Every structure is written in C-alpha cells, then in structure tokens.
C-alpha cells in the first residue's frame, strides 16, 4: 500500500486532541451520590491532579474514526493485478441526443451503463472512452464504482459526429494490455460481423430505435467565387423518413423573425430552400427548422452571416504593365470580382500587387517576378492537400517565367519548381492574422498555362476566405487579437480562456451556436454549425464500428492497477461514527431513565462545583 498524499496523516494529530478532550472530561467527571455526609472528610481534602485518562469504548471508536479519516486524507492506494479489464465505449455523438418516448438515447445508455457498473465484478477495471470527442473519460482504468459512476454521469452528448472504431483505437492504445471485453453503448445498429479468431468479446448495449427526423444539412449565403450573386440564404433540408414531411424554415435575428419558407419534402428527399432577407438584415442570422416527425433538436438550427454585396472588390496595385494586363484580363472573366486601383475603395477583399509594401489589414497576393522573365519549362510539385492546390495534379509540367533567385521563402510552400535538381518554392502561403500569398512567377506574358491560372484563382479564393461558418469539431483561427489571453463566451454562456499567438486565436468549437471572442475592446463573433447527415439519419443509421484489428491490441503484460481506498475508508468511518453515536445516545437514554439526584431535605449544603466532583480515580 502506498499513500498519494502522505501529508494527510497530519490528521492523526486530531488523536492528540481527542486524548486531551477525554482527559479533560475525565478530570471533570461527576458522580452522583445520595449524601455528601459520609464523604464530608473527602470534600475537605484538596483535589488531586488527575494523571490518567479514563477511556471507554466510545473513545476507541472515536479514535478509530479519526485514524481512519486521517488515513483517507492520505489517499492510500493498493496495487494489485486486476481480475479483468473492460474497455467501455460510450457513444456521445449528436444522434444520442434524439428523444423518443421520453428519455434520450444517451440517458438510456447512461442508465444501462450505471446498472452494469454496479453489477460488475469488484475487481474488474473499466476504462471509459467517449466517441465525440474521442477521449478517455477516466484517465486510467479503475474499478472504483463511485469514480465510474461519476464519470458516466459527467459524460454528455456533444454536438459532434462520433466514430466507435476510432474511440476503440484510442482506448486500446491507452490500455497496457488487451482488455477482456469491450462494452459499447450506442444507438448505432449492431453490425453483423464474422467471428474472428482472437477477437475480444464485444458486448453491445443498443439504445437506438428507428425514428423519423428532419434536419438542416447545409446553409450557405454566398455563391461561387466568380459568379455575382444576390444576397440570399439557402438552407438545405432533408427528410429522413418514409413519409411526406411538412417543414418550415425560419430566419430570425435577435428573436425577431425575418422570413419563413414552407415546404413539403418527399420521403428521403433533400431540398434547398431560398430565404429572401431584407436589406437591413446585418450580422448573424439564425436559421431554424420546424417539422413534424423531428426527433433530433441539434440539427434544427444553424447560423449564417449573409453577404449583401453582389461582388467582391479586388484592389490591383501592380506596377508592371504586363502583369497588370494579364491579371486584369483574368479577373474580368469573373463577374463577381470587381477590380479597382483605388486604394481608398472600401472593403477590398484582396490586394494583388507586385510591390514590396504591405497593407496590414488586407489579404494580399504578392507577385514576385524574376528579373528576366524567360519562360522555363519545368515540373512543378503541388501540395494538393492545401486549398490553393485544388484541381491540380501533384506533378504538373508548366512553362512559365519562374523566379529562381536564391533567398529564403518563409511560409507554407504550396508549389515548387524543380529546376536543375533544385526544388524551389514558387508559391508560398502565409496563414497568419492576415493571409498572404507570394507567387514567384511573372504574369507579364499572356499565360496559357492552366496550372498557373488555377493557382492564381485558387490563391484569390483562399485569400477571400471561407464563406461558410465552421462546423463543430473543425478548428478555426480568429485573427485580430494581440498576443495574450482572450475570453471566449460559448453558446452555453460559459466563459473560457484562450491564448492568442501571432495575432490569432486557434479554437475548436465543440458546441453549435454563437461564440464571442473578446480581448479588451476587441471582439469577434463567430458561429459554428452542426451539419452531419449521418448523425441526423435516425431512420437508417450507419455503423461506425469496425472489428478491432488484433494487431492493434496492446501486448504488454497487464500492469498492477492502483486501487484507491479513500472512499471506502470514508464510508467505513462514517459507519464507525454512526455506531459511536448510537452507543453514546443509548447510554444517554439509559442515563435518563435513572432516579434524579437526591436532595437532602432541610440540609443546606453548599455545593462547590469542584467539591462535587469525586477526585479519586474510579476504576471499573
């Protein structure tokens, strides 16, 4: 046995206090006697100082309680090899919040788990992992039923999608040895899997029921980059049922309804509904869905910030006439992009320039051509996992005047040119407080290279930024803060602290709703939406469970587990104290039934309190 907090044994000092109290009580013990007269002589003697403590069973009970509590304060643990280990996977994905016949699926799962926790073997240890987000609720396997109960009670449904197999992988990785069984509590259907050798026994707690649902599966407010579009909000709704569904989609702001659209959805149909907004509607708008047969609330709301501009102004400040002509001709193909050379124009989305100065507030595409723009035919490597690399192959053959000059090109390289054995970044992105792209290519010649044109427009699109609010679980970067602490007000009104670095805060919204980021007088509002058709489909849910690969099983020898004893000691000492109280009150009750003290009639005997005490020790 070892102690986690040995200083807790300082509580044993209470024993000393207890002893002193008993000694004090012993010294002041009273005896009731019928008459003082036979003891008159004794009363005249000065009292002798008591040197012994008189104790009885009550003392020992109290002392045991104090010692036990002091030991509990020291958090003793014993290490012993657990009889068995179970990996418990709790589905906390959004679909578990569906409510049918009273309780939600998660509430049913929680009840079932609590029952199993109470009924399990006392030495079986559980490691509890949730699916959304994939995390361990118990930091390590434990058999303490109270800890497990609290952990299960503390788990809650998240506004996220979940994956049972991913949670299993993480749970297995956190176990030192293969579990004896896996317990899965979920609303997903149990998959029919072939029996595999060496497979861990998997028990399924299914709490799912088929249910109808209507859901918002998308909200958008901006058209494609190149096409001018009216300010509008398009909400995509889906009917996850076998019957017609009457739905109403409402746009509201600050509690006031702006507009509403009614629709009838065919079974299984998905439909985009356009919401016409008044021109005066600015800022975040909440879109809500109401419909019969709706079983999940989280997918009935979304937030969007409509853009009222039909076009995006692009500030073109290019000194090279050839580059200017090329860029202007490219941009003219997009009706939504309006080119201006006036820096005073308000709200320029992107600045395209070949100058070396930067405008702090504007996203910028900086063109850095070579000194001698001679077209070079070369292979370009493209990072296709970056948004700027979209539509392009990982290797392209391009003829273009590339800037091959030496020099550091910091940032995130998205495209490189291979020349004479060298790999030189020719497009570098900076994803900081204000986005910037450096393009080391001359655009003076009328470029006909498709990859180059694609890189240009992809860069513009990336610089313009995302038009859609993020979905829950997707990290966002909020710019415009000084380095330091930033307060984040969540949709549930809780306040969190985040840290801004390099002018930006990286935050992962895990709850759908509006977030407010505040640092002093600087505030930014952001909304996160929950869109997940797989979670919203309660009629035909899919299974995210995949058989556990035996190779993924931890192969270590099962380590001795720590078994805390504190709670047991507390419960035991509580019982001891109750027993002590029962004993004491019983004695008091018996004492109360004895005859009252005899008062000598007519004899006025001055009763000195001290003299009324028997000073001689009484031994039993």
């Amino acid at each position, binding site marked *: 046995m070892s102690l986690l907090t040995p200083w807790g044994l300082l509580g044993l000092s209470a024993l000393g206090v207890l002893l002193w109290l008993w000694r004090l009580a012993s010294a002041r013990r009273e005896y009731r006697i019928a008459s003082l007269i036979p003891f008159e002589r004794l009363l005249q003697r000065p009292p002798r100082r008591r040197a012994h403590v008189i104790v009885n069973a009550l003392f020992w009970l109290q002392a045991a309680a104090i010692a036990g509590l002091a030991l509990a304060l020291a958090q003793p643990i014993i290490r012993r090899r657990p009889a068995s280990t179970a990996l418990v996977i709790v589905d906390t994905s959004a679909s578990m919040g569906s409510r049918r016949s009273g309780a939600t699926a998660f509430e049913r799962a929680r009840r079932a788990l609590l029952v199993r926790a109470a009924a399990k073997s006392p030495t079986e240890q559980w490691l509890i992992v949730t699916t959304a987000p994939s995390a361990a609720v118990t930091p390590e396997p434990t058999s303490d039923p109270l800890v497990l109960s609290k952990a299960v009670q503390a788990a809650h449904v998240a506004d996220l999608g979940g994956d049972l197999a991913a949670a299993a992988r993480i749970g297995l990785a956190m176990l030192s040895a293969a579990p004896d069984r896996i317990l899965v509590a979920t609303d997903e259907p149990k998959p029919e899997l072939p029996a595999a050798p060496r497979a861990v026994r998997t028990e399924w707690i299914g709490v799912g029921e088929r249910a109808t649902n209507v859901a918002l599966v998308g909200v958008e407010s901006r058209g494609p980059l190149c096409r001018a579009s009216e300010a509008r909000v398009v909400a995509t709704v889906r009917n996850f049922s076998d019957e017609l569904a009457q739905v109403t989609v409402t746009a509201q702001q600050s509690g006031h309804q702006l507009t509403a659209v009614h629709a009838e959805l065919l079974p299984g149909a998905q439909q985009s509904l356009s919401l016409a907004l008044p021109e005066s509607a600015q800022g975040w708008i909440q879109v809500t869905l109401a419909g019969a047969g709706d079983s999940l609330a989280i997918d009935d709301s979304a937030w969007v910030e409509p853009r009222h501009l039909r076009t995006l102004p692009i500030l073109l400040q290019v000194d090279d006439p050839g580059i200017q002509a090329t860029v202007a001709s490219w941009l003219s193909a997009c009706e939504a992009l309006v080119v201006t050379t006036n820096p005073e124009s308000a709200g320029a989305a992107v600045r395209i320039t070949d100058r070396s100065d930067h405008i702090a507030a504007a996203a910028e595409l900086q063109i850095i051509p070579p000194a001698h723009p001679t077209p070079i035919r070369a292979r370009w490597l493209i990072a296709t996992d970056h948004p700027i690399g979209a539509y392009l192959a990982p290797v392209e053959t391009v003829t273009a005047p590339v800037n091959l000059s030496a020099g550091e090109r910091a940032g995130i390289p998205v495209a490189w040119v291979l020349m004479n054995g060298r790999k030189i970044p020719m497009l570098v992105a900076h994803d900081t407080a204000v986005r910037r792209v450096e393009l080391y290519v001359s655009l003076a010649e009328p470029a006909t290279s498709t990859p180059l044109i694609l890189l240009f427009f992809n860069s513009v699109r990336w610089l313009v930024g995302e038009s859609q609010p993020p979905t829950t679980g997707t990290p966002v970067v909020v710019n415009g803060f000084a380095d330091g602490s930033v307060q984040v007000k969540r949709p549930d009104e809780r306040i969190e602290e985040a840290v801004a670095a390099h002018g930006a805060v990286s935050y992962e919204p895990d709850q759908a709703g509006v977030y407010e980021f505040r640092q002093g007088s600087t505030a930014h509002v952001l909304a996160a939406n929950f869109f997940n058709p797989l979670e919203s489909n309660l009629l035909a849910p899919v299974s995210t469970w995949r058989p556990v690969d035996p190779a993924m099983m931890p192969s270590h020898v099962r380590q001795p587990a720590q078994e805390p004893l504190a709670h047991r000691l507390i419960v035991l*000492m509580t019982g001891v104290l109750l027993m002590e109280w029962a004993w004491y009150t019983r004695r*008091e009750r018996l004492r109360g039934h004895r005859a009252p003290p005899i008062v000598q009639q007519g004899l006025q005997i001055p009763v000195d309190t001290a003299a009324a005490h028997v000073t001689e020790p009484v031994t039993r």
Partner: protein
Amino acid sequence: MNLMSLVWVLAIAALGFVGWRGRHLTTSRGKRIAILGCRMAAIGALIAATAAAPHQRTAENARRIVYLIDGSASIDPAQQAWIANRVASLELVRPSAVEHAIMVFGRQAELAAPLRAGRPLDPRAVQHAMISASIDPASTNLESALLSALAQLGSQRGGRIVLFSDGRETAGNVTELLPLLRRAGVEIFSVPVPSMGRATTVWEHLVAPPIVQRGAAIPIELVIHQAGSKTRAGQLSVAMEGVTIKQQSVAVRPGWQVIALTVPAVRRGTTALDVRLSIPEESLEEARRIYTEVEGPPRLLVVTDQVADVPAVATALKRREMDVELARPQDVPITPEALLDYDAVVLFHLPKSSLSQGQADALARYLERFGGGLVTVGLGGELATEITTPAPLDPVLPVVFEPKGLQEAKRRVCMVLLIDRSASMMGPRIAATKRAAVELVKQLSPEDLVGIYAFDTQPYVVVEIQPARQVGQWLIDKLVKLKATGGTDVLPALTTAAERLAMTGATVNHIILLSDGNTPVNAGLYRALFQAFRTRQISVSTIGIGSAFINVDYLQWVSRETGGTYYPLRDLNELPKLIVRDTQNQLERLPFSEGQYQPVKSPTTDWFAQTTEFPRLRGFLTATAKPGARVDLIVRATDEEYPLLARWQLGQGRVVSWTSDSDTRWSPEWIRWNGFDRTWAEIVRWASRQRLTEELFVSVEQRSGKPLLVLEGDLADPQATIVPAERPEASMRTEPPGRMPLSLIQTGPWRWQASLEQVPSGWYQLLVEASSAVQPAPATNGQTRAVATRWIRIGTPPADRELPGQPPYEPLLRQVAQATSGMYDMPDQAFLPVTTTVTTAVPAFTWWIPFALLALLGDVALRGSSLFQ
C-alpha cells in the same frame, strides 16, 4: 436507482438517524443542539466527501516534458548518437524545475526514464535508455507513441512532448490522433533527425492520375531526391496483379528529378500498380502501390441463342463505340456481382424460359441494387409457349406479353409440295397431283411462299420456293412434263425441302408429301431428320398415293413424328380436297392479321426528337405496358395500340423492352435504316448504368490539421462511401465490414466536404453516388443514382518497411507541431515558460475530512463528562 442516488438516500437516512437518536441526549437544550449539530456536520461532511465532485484547482506547476525518441529500425546508430547528444544539450538548458521523462518507441512505446526534475541527463544516459528499451523496432508507430506519452503526462494540461523522429511512420496514423492531442492541451515540438547513413536517395512521391480512359496510357511519375553528387543507376519496374508489365533502367541524378513512365490501361475498373525502385549502389529497394480507375465506353453483355451469328443490334452498338460481349443463356451468371463488369445486359431473341430462377434473381438484384441496365429485344423460342407461360424474368419486364399471339404479316407461310415421281405415279395420279398443286397455290396469299419438288431417289426442283403470286400457268406446264422414273427414296427429298424451308425464315413451314411410302428407311437418319424438323418447326403431312401397296405405317410415322397429318386417299379425285384441307389446317395454326406495321411515337414521349418517321415492321409481339412503365413507340393493329418500346425504372436500374425483333425476320427495313445505330445506341445508353465521371473533382485537403474530403461537381444529393484498399473488390459488391459512409455537407453550390478525421491512413476507394444533373434522364418512377469511383490516399505516404538513412519527412513533423500549437525544430522553446497553469482535480474529501474531524472533536468536547455516564 444508480449509485449516486443510493448515496443520497443513505445520507438522508444517516442524518435522520443521528437526529432521531439525538433526542435521547440528557444535556441542556443548547448543548444538545450543539452536540447534535456537530455530529450531523461531521456525518454530512463525510457524505459530501464521498459524493461531491472533485474540485478543479488551477495552479502554476512546473512543466512536464517527455522526450519521445524514435527507436525504430530506420534510426541508425549514428542517428541515435545524434539524438542522445541533442537531448543532452537540451538538458543543459532545461530549467531544473521542469520535470522530464524519456520514452522510446518503435511499434510500441516504453518509458525509459520516469518523470523527474533535477539533474540533467548526459548523452550516455540517454543512449543507454534508448538501447535498453525493449521495443519492437520493426515499425514506426507515432500514433501509439504519442498516446503513451500522453498517458505519462497525465490529465494535466500544458504537457509538452519533444519528438525526435524521422517522421517516416510505417504503422498507425498520427494525423488521426492530432485532434485528440490538441483537445488534451498537449503541445508537440518535433525535431527532425537528420540522415547520416549511406542512403542518399529518397523517393518522395508516386503520382498517377485518378482516372484514365481504357486504351490510353497511364502516366506514372516518381519524384526523387538524390542528395549525393554522382548519378546513380537504378531499376524501375511496374507490376499489375503480380505480373511485371514494364521495366526500365533509370539514371538518378543528383538533386530533385521526376522520372516518368507509362503503362497501358488495358482493363476497365480499378488498376493497382506496384512500382518498385531499386538502386543497388545504395542498397535501396522500395516498393509502393498506387491505384487508378480505368474507365471506358459502356460495356454490354448481349445474351443470345445464336452466338455465332452476331445480331444486327450488337453490330450497331459496336459501331457506336460500345464494348459488346456475346454470351449464351446458360452463361448468364447467377450472382449479381458477376454482372457488375457490365453497364447493361441485352437479351436478344431470348426465350424467357431459358433463364433460370437464379439467373433472373441475379438480374433483378443487378438492376435494383447496383443500378444496372436491361434491354430485351423480342422473344425467342416457341412464341406461343413463351407468351403464355410465366417465367422468372417476367417481374422485371415493363410489359406483359399477352396471349393474343404475335402480330405478323401473313407473308411468313411456306408450303412445299413433295411429289413422288416414281413409276407408281404415272397416269391419272399425275393429273390429280397437278390439280392438287393448283389448289394449293390458290389457298395461299400472294405473299406466301410455295415450292414444289419432285423426287425419286433424289430431289428435283419443279418450282423453287417463291411467292405464290409468282406461280402461274407455267406451273401446270412443268407438272405436265413430270416424268415417272424408277425407285423412291424420300429421305433426300425431305432433307432438301427442309433446307429450302430453313432459308425462308417463314413462321409456318409445312411439307405435303405425296408418295406411296415405299422407300428405304434408315431409322437413325430419319430420327435425326425428325429432330431437325422439330427444331425448325417443320411439319410434314403425308398423303398416300402411287402404287396399290401404300406403306401406311411409314407415312403415318413421318406425319406423326413431325406434327403433321396422314391422309388416306381413297379416290384420286379427293387429292385436291385433301391438299386444301391440309393447307387450311396449317394456315389456321396461329392468328394472323394482315399488313405491315408502322411504328409511331407515343404522345407522351420525349425521345427520338430528331426522328419524324420510323421504318415499318413486319411483326411484333402483342403486349401491354405495366403500370408505371413509359411507352415511347407504339404500333397500331386491329384498332388497338400496342407498345413497341416500353421502359421503366426498377430500383436503381432501368429496363427497356422492344417487342419486335430488330432482325431480318420482322425488321429488315429497320436494319437498313440509317437511324438504326443511333436509335439503338440511345436506347441502350439510357438503360446503361450511369456514370458521372466527367465533371467530378475529388481532393483531400488539410484544414488546421484536420483532413477533409472535398467534392466538386454538378451533383444532386451526393452520397459518398470509402472502402479500404485491402478489399477493393468489396467496393460495391458486399456490405460492411469495409465500407465507411462519409457525412457530406454542402458548403457551396457545387461543393461538398466530409471530415476524414476518424479514418485511418491508407488508400481508399471512394464511391460517389448522386443524381447527376449532367446527364438529363427522363423522369420515370424514381431517380437513378449514378456512381463514380476515385482512389484517394489519406494520411502520410505509406512506407512498406523501415528504411535506414532516409532524411526526415518534414511535412508530417511540421504538421504534428502545427496541429498541436508546438514548434518545428525548436525544442528548446518547449521549456519556456518554466511553469504552466495546471488544472488538477482535487478530491472533495481534501476539505471535507478536516471539517469532519473538527466537527467530531467539537462533538466530543461538548459532550464533556457525559462520555463516562
């Protein structure tokens, strides 16, 4: 009742007990209350100590660092020494308050030195820790290593991991773990371990296009970096399904270069290419696999009885750039998976009854579940039976063939008169024969075919088979010239007559044999002949004429075996009447209606917009369209309209029925029509399984360390599923395990994205189903789901084994650092600040127990001497 509820119930019971027993206290009222209060406070505090949630305490604690060191086989001893020196140099600058631990990992991780503060480590200690760790170096599993390090850091936020690795993971998927680490507040400072070994060539990328057209070349590109100064010779090979299809020598020059080669795309579907690069000078031998999807024109399976004779329809479809494969009915598979190689199945003149229940079920499932196509062209076999007998294929057809029989122009009767010209036929018999022949011709319509042959021991043409209207007076003249000769052998005559009949393609083929039947009989030959007659549906009626001795047995036998009738002739004058009677009997076998048939478009069709008039047909099968079927072409006969072209949606598939034959029998004008190819191509393309390949872009992007699948295309309601590469054949043909549906969210007018956060790394086949707006489909009773297939790679480039001496894979190491707010190649920054705000869960009893002790002592103190009473 759960445990917490039980705790509360017991708590209330305990306090109630204390209060109830407290009434027995004999002290003064005030003291009693005080004692009771103390005891209840103590009990209540202990209950709270048990039930209350831990208190979250935030404090500044010394930071915890875990040095996570790659001990896999790809780290050679020189790199190990480098790591040890690097760790030791970091230890020199590490603030003493910062706790550190060392973990070494390969396939799994092991704690080499537990967390502790204080004295810095020296290189020898670090190296010793690395060497003595009992890990499996056969793979680099960053995922499990980081999870183990996370476990070491505990639940406290602010822990940091300094990762020394070359980033070339060969197991697990660390990118899948990054969101968990980020949420746990762990920051990773990744340090690339430079290569010091002999190997200087690194194969960075292997690239192939996601789709190619069949017959084109598949371009393969290798991006290679050679850090040496000399060109090295290497060997490159490409294998497909274990067979090397290309091999070439390469010169690997210093620096970066792209090596390109091509292999042919020979077969539709998924092509897995195993590319192997070997550079003997560096002992480099590495193999990688890449997938590409080969697409081609629609592939059709044409099922017909007569495989040797390519149907006109098949030829027309080939001319329209479709792949056609011919098969016999017995070759139609009984599993739908075997049909998935085809975009449509065409049943050409196939008897419905020739497909078994299993084959019909496979076709139905191929249609309903997998979106295949079915086109039926006419019917084969015994039409009267096929039309009236239910067959397993009936439920999938959009029409019901009705027992009105076929509608056919009457010009499909062919009668042959075989006249025995042996010596027994002289005299009045030949005159009777002449009259009979005339009567025969008179019974026939001008379009009907008639032929007259004479025979003795061999056949002779009297009148070659021709339309009856062409037979005139000259028939009499020819018959008059008929001379009697010697012996009789019926068999050659019957054989010749059958051959002639087969060439006509007539519906009703009948021979009237005038003979005395005295002929040599070879039973085997006759049986073979009768079998051929039955196959060709040729009947023979016999009339005994000639000598006094008529071989009635023979004549009856022939007629009986061929479905004809034997007519005994009592009087020569009866011969013409018998001929007439027999002719009438044959003409009445099936209902006929007169005339040619003109197909027209139905009023509701939107097909064949460019066609105003269609060629005529000579026949069709009468049918009725089922409810829900759409009729595009009709024919009118006997004041009724019959569907000629009917179609419908069956599940995800489509079925078309053409009730004529599209062959020489009924559709010779169609075959000669210049719109024949176009029309049939349009019909088959509509029925074929749809693809939406042309306008679909697929990419995997990284957004803040989170992988996202992005689809762009003119799609409606797309659904996406991915299947791991280990079982690509399970892509569309089997249910899970393997298939992972993705949650597609529309983020723009033509843009969808789905999170790949939970997906392990590797190659995946992406299946996209959507109702495409690109291919306008006529609205039927459902929407067709087109399918596109792409291959995507999720996670880091998979290395098949540990390769020592490779330079570090910086993109992954940077991604790990960036995703967790750490730093790349700046490990000393991990120590700053020295302390971190740590939130720890402090058990509730830390406060409640002291309070309970105080309350207990107070209780004892108040009791005083009553303790002893």
